C-alpha cells in the first residue's frame, strides 16, 4: 500500500459551489488521512463543511480541486458508474435521517447493497442475517421501517452499512434524529463495530459523543482548524511515506 495503512488520503482538496452570482468555498485546502481501523470524528459548527467533506469522502460528490486516494487507489477521476461501484464495495453510509427505503422490509433494506453488487442470493441472505445479528435487529427482519423506532431504524441503517464489509463506515450525524437514550445506543453500536475492526469516520456537532472517537478533526469555514489533529494527520502522512 503506497500510503502504508492510510485508508483515506485527501490532498489539497477544495470544493466550490457555483451559483449564477457567486461562488461558495465549502472546503479549502483539505489535507487529511484516515488510518485503517481508526474511529475519527469531524466536528464543527453548522455550515462549516462537515457534510460536504463526508460526501466527498463517500464519493457522493466530487472535489473541485485536489486528490483523493482510497486504500491507495486514486478515486478522484472516476466516472459516476465507477464511483457507484466503489461506494458499493468499500463504503458504508449511516445517515442522520436513516434513509431506509420505506417500501422494503428490514431484511431487504440490508440486502440491497449486495444486490447492486451482484452477490448471489444465498450469500446475500447469509450476510444480511449476520449484519442484522451484529446490530441486534435480526428479530425484526420482516418488519418495515415504519414499524420501527428511530433507534431501531438507525441500527438497521448500520447493518446495511456493514453488510458488504466495507473499508470504511461514514456516519453523518447518526444520532441527530434520536433521543439521548437511542443516541447512546447507536454510539455504543458504532463503538462495537469499531472494536470489531471497522474504520469509522463520523460527522457530528454533538460534543457528548466526542469521547467515542479516537481522533477529532475540527472544521471551521471549510478548513481543518485543529492544529494538533492536522499535525497528527500530516505527521502520519510523513511517517508513512
Amino acid at each position, binding site marked *: 500500500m503506497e500510503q502504508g495503512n492510510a485508508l483515506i488520503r485527501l490532498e489539497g482538496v477544495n470544493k466550490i459551489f457555483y451559483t449564477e452570482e457567486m461562488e461558495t468555498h465549502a472546503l479549502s485546502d483539505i489535507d487529511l488521512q484516515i488510518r485503517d481501523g481508526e474511529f475519527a470524528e469531524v466536528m464543527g459548527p453548522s455550515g462549516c463543511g462537515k*457534510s*460536504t467533506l463526508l*460526501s466527498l469522502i*463517500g464519493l*457522493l*460528490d466530487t472535489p473541485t480541486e485536489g486528490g483523493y486516494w482510497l486504500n491507495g487507489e486514486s478515486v478522484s477521476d472516476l466516472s*459516476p*458508474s465507477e464511483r*457507484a*461501484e466503489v*461506494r*458499493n*464495495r468499500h*463504503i*458504508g*453510509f449511516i*445517515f442522520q435521517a436513516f*434513509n*431506509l*427505503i*420505506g*417500501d*422494503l422490509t428490514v431484511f431487504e433494506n440490508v440486502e*440491497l*447493497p449486495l*444486490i*447492486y*453488487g*451482484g452477490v*448471489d*442470493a444465498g450469500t446475500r441472505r447469509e450476510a444480511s442475517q449476520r449484519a442484522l445479528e451484529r446490530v441486534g435487529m435480526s428479530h425484526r427482519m420482516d418488519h418495515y421501517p415504519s414499524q420501527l423506532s428511530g433507534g431501531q431504524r438507525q441500527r438497521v441503517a448500520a447493518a*446495511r452499512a456493514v453488510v*458488504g464489509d466495507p473499508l470504511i463506515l461514514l456516519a453523518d450525524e447518526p444520532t441527530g434524529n434520536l433521543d439521548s437514550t437511542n443516541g447512546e445506543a447507536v454510539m455504543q453500536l458504532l463503538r462495537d463495530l469499531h472494536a470489531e475492526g471497522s474504520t469509522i469516520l463520523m460527522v457530528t456537532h454533538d460534543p457528548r459523543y466526542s469521547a467515542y472517537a479516537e481522533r477529532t478533526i475540527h472544521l471551521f469555514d471549510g478548513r481543518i482548524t485543529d492544529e494538533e489533529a492536522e499535525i497528527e494527520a500530516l505527521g502520519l502522512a510523513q511517517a508513512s511515506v
Partner: protein
Amino acid sequence: MDGFINDVKFGIRMLIKSPVLSLIAIVAFALGIGLTTTVFSIVNGAMYKGLPFDDADRVVSVWRVNPEREIERGGVTLYDYVEYRDQNSSLEAFGLWSNGAVNLVGADDKPERYQGARVTANMFEILRVAPVLGRGFLPEEEEPGAEPVMIIGYEVWQEKFDGSPEVIGRTVRTNGEPRTIVGVAPEGFKFPIEADMWAPLEVNPLEHDRDDGPQFPGFGRLKPGVSLDRASADFATIGLRLEAEYPESNEGFSPIVEPFTKFTIGNELHALLFTMLGAAIGVLLIGCANVANLLFARAAVREKEVAVRSAIGAKRKQIVRQLLIEVGVLSAIGGAVGVLIGIAGMAWFNRAVATNPPPFWMTFDIDGRVLLFATLASGLAAVAAGLFPALRATDKGLNEALNDEGRGSSSGLRMGRVTSAIVIGEVAVSCGLLIAAGLMIKSVAQLRTIDMPFAIENIFTARLNLPETDYPDADARTDFYREFLQRLQTTPGIEAATLSDGLPARGNGLRTFEIEGVDYPTERDYPRAREGIVTPGYFATFQAPVLEGRPFEFADTGDNLPVALVNRSFVREYFEDGVGIGKRFRIHQGNDVYDWMTVVGVVPDMKMEGIGNNDQSPAGYYIAVDQFAEILGNTVSVGARTTGDPGAMAARVRETLAALDPNLPVYDAMSMQAVIDDATWFYRVFGTLFMTFGFTALFLAAVGLYGVMSFSVSQRRREMGIRMALGAKEDRLIRFAMRRGMRQLAIGIVIGIALAALATKPLQIILYEVDARDPVIFGGVVLALALVGAIASYIPARRVSRIHPAEALQSG
C-alpha cells in the same frame, strides 16, 4: 437475473402500495394498447397476413396500367397473356383469373348462388396448393371445346354434398350448363378473393381482335432468386416490345408486377388504415404521457429513495432499470387488458364487416404477430412513459437529494416544465383526435338522418342472374324480365315492383354520351354520367315522383322511339336552358354508338353516384330495359314495395321465380333499409373507431390535466400559504392556480388545430357529406376541450381554498 426478479417484486409492491396511481396508469396503458392492438389487428388482417400458401409472398399479380387513360390496374388481354407467359423469364408459372357468380343446381335440385372464379389450369401449381379430393385442372381443359369441368370449395363440398367422396365425377348444372366436378379445394381456399368454385378459363385469343376482347388479372409465382423489381423490369421490357409492335392495341399500356394482395387495398384505404393506426398510437401516446406525468410526480417524492440507492452503490443504469421495470409491470398489466380490449374489438369488427366479407386471406383476429405487436407496444409504452422520468429522477445531485427535506426543490421546477410540455402535447394530440371524432360523429349522424329521395320502408330487394346458356340473347332476357315483372306485380303482398341494373343509393355505373347539337372536339371530350337501366314501375316502386314529363311505360320497347328520363342534376349540368323534356342524347359503348334518345321525363336525384361519393356528380339518366337489354346483361336487381314486412317476402319472390324458372336462385334478398345499412357500413365502422379514439383521448387528456394540476397544487402548498398569509383571496388563488393549466390548454389546442388541419385529409373518404375541415366541428371541439380542460383544472385548483396558511407554511 436475480436483480431483475427483485426489481419486478419491488415493482409489484409499488403497484399495490399506490393503487390509485397504478389503476390510472393501467387504464391509460390498457386503453392505448387496446385501441392500438385493435387497429393493428385490422391492418395486420388487411395488409400483412397475405395469402395462406407456401411461400405466398412470391405470388404476384400482373396488371396493365395506362396512366394517360387513368387505368391504374387494368386486366391482361388474352393476346398479351400469351406473350407474357411465353416470353417472361421471371415467373415459374403465369395464369389469369376472373371472378363471377355461379348459379349451382346440385343434388337437391335447388338453385343456389355462389361466388365462383374462372382460372387458368395452372392455378394450383402457381399457388402450390393441392386439392383435398380429386385433381386440379389439366392444361387441355382451358382449351376451347374442352369437356366442362369444375372444382368445388371444401365448404360447398361439406354443405351441398355432405362431404361425400362420390362427388368426384358428378355432373351438376352451373349457370345452366352441365359441369363435371373433378376436385375439391382445401378448407378455407377461396382464391382469388372469395370464390367457392372454380372453372377453367378458356384461353382463346383468336376469338377476338387484338384491341378487343376480355381482359383478366394475371397472377404468377416468382422464380427462386428473382426479385419483384427484376420481374417488373422483365415484364416492362416485354410491354415495350408489344407497344412498339402493336401500337393500335398496346399504346400507352405497360405491365406491372406487384405482390398479389396489393390490389385489394387502394391507396386511399391504405392511407386511411395508417391514419387510423396513427390515431390509435396517438391515444397510446396520450396514455404514456399521462403515466409519465404521474411518474414525474412520484419521482419528486422518491428523490430521496433514489439517492439512497445510489449512495449504497447502485449504478444509475441499475436504478433506471428498476424504475423502468416498475413501469413495465404496469404496462404489462395494461397490455394484457389491452389485448382483451383488442379481442373484443375484433369480435365487434368481424360482426360489423360480416355483411361485406373481405377477401379470404383477410382474417381479423389476435394472432402471433398481433400479440408480438401488443408486447412490443407495451414495452415501448413503458419506455416512453418511464424513461424520461427515470432519467430525471436519477440526475439530481446525490448530496442535494439526501439532504433535501422535500421543500419545493429545483427539480420540482424542472419537472414542472417537462410536465407542462407533456400536457401541451397531450392536449394537442387529443384535439386532433377529437376533431377527427367530431367529423365522424357528424358523418354518422348525417347517415342516420339522411333524407333519401326515395322510399326505404317496406321495400324488398334481391338479385338474380340469368345464365347465358338458358338466356343467350337480349330478346330471351327481355321476355323473361317482362314476364317475371308481371308475375311479381300480382304476387300477394306486393304493391309495386321493378327490375333494374341497380338499386338506388348503391351507385350506378358511368357511361359516355353525347348531347345532340353539342360540338365535341374529340372522343375524349364526351361527357360521362350515371346510367340506370330500369323497367316501368321503378319510380312508382321507390315512390320517387316524376317531376316533369312521364315515367317509362310498357310501350317503351325496342320497336318504338328510344326514350330516356334524366335527373335534376343532369338537366342542370347539361341543358343550359334548364329544360330537359324533348332534348336528345345518345350513348356510346366502346366503338358502338346507340340511337338518339328523347328525354321524356325528369326525376329527382336518387343517389345515383352512391353514398359518400361527395366529390362526384350526381347527374344521371335512366333508360328502359326493353330498349337496352343488351347493355343490361344477365344480372338484375329486384325492387318491390310490400304491404307488410319486406323480410317476409323472400320466400314468395322465390316461389314466383321458381314457377317461371326453377333453376334460378334469388340472392342478396334484403330490405331496402338493409341495403342502405350495407352501403354505409364503411362509414359506420370506421366512424365508430375514430369516435372511440376521440373520446378515449378526451378522457385521458382530462385525466392528465387533472393529475398535473393536482400535483402542481400540492407542490405549491407552501407558496399558496405565503400568498394567503399576505392576504390573497380564495378566488384569486384559484385563478392563479388555474392559470398555468389554462395556458397549457390554450397552447395545446392551437397546436392540435394545426395538426388536425393537416391530418384529417385522409379521412375524407370515410366522411359522408362532411368537409374534412368543417369549421363547426373545429370550433365545437375547441369549446368542448376548453370546457373539459377548465373543469379538470378547476377541481384541483379549488383545493387551494382548503390550505390552512399556518399549516402550509410549517409543512414547507
